């Protein structure tokens, strides 16, 4: 009988396939648990104790959020409540959100929940992208809160005639057809005032999530990073 090659041997391929499939299964189960831990939302205590979470607690809407280049990580990171000079959040500087900077965890959570449900009911993802899911017909909303167009030097507060970012956003969401900002105009989706406030809270919270620098092109927008 001629020499039998290992490459034609059933057992070699069966053992290799068993090893790779088994190992990959274990790795994927591990990855699932690892991801669950990373994307679980922080709490108000985390923010008060200065614990950096990838997804901060709902009361992050009481804090000032900026987007700053981290030399260590090589991309922009959301900085909550002031920068310690090394790109880490200080969790100190507050910012009024609809006139208050003392929203309780329960109130903030309810607003975010309403905003999340609203974003699903009005199907924002039909045109926009949220955290990598959705379309690119309209601007990416992942870091929309940090978009300088809504800031004090941007155009949106002026054309909506509102003194703050959150009020300008809420006004725009209720009457988008009045403010032509883009050739692709946003339609009036019948968003109520309460829903608009929830949606703005949802957007502010989303901008505080550490997305490892996603979307990558956001940092190229003038004024988006470190106010430059």
């Amino acid at each position, binding site marked *: *009988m001629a020499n039998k090659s*290992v490459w034609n*041997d059933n057992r*070699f391929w069966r053992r290799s396939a068993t*090893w790779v499939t088994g190992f990959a299964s274990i790795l994927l189960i591990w*990855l699932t648990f*690892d991801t669950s831990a*990373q994307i679980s939302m922080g709490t108000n205590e985390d923010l008060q104790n200065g614990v950096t979470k990838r997804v901060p607690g709902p009361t992050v809407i009481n804090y000032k959020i900026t987007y700053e280049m981290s030399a260590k990580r090589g991309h922009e*990171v959301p900085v909550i409540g002031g920068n310690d000079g090394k790109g880490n959040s200080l969790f100190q500087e507050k910012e009024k959100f609809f006139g208050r900077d003392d929203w309780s965890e329960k109130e903030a959570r309810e607003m975010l929940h309403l905003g999340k449900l609203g974003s699903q009911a009005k199907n924002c993802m039909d045109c926009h992208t949220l955290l990598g899911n959705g379309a690119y017909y309209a601007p990416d909303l992942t870091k929309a809160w940090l978009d300088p167009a809504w800031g004090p030097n941007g155009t949106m507060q002026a054309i909506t005639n509102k003194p703050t970012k959150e009020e300008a956003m809420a006004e725009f969401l209720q009457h988008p057809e009045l403010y032509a900002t883009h050739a692709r105009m946003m339609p009036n989706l019948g968003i109520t005032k309460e829903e608009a406030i929830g949606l703005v809270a949802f957007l502010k919270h989303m901008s505080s999530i550490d997305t490892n620098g996603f979307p990558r092109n956001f940092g190229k927008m003038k004024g988006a990073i470190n106010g430059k």
Partner: protein
Amino acid sequence: MFEQFTDVVPSFFGWLNQGPLTLTIFLHTVIILPMIFIYFQEKKRLENEK
């Protein structure tokens, strides 16, 4: 070749994602090396059967 770990939270999967070589070396270690080991085991078995 190897860069400082920079992800926000230390994690094994974050380490895998730090650069192209970390993932490549890891996958070669867990797939190719065991296959080489299995290859020589099976070769020895076939030779013994003869």
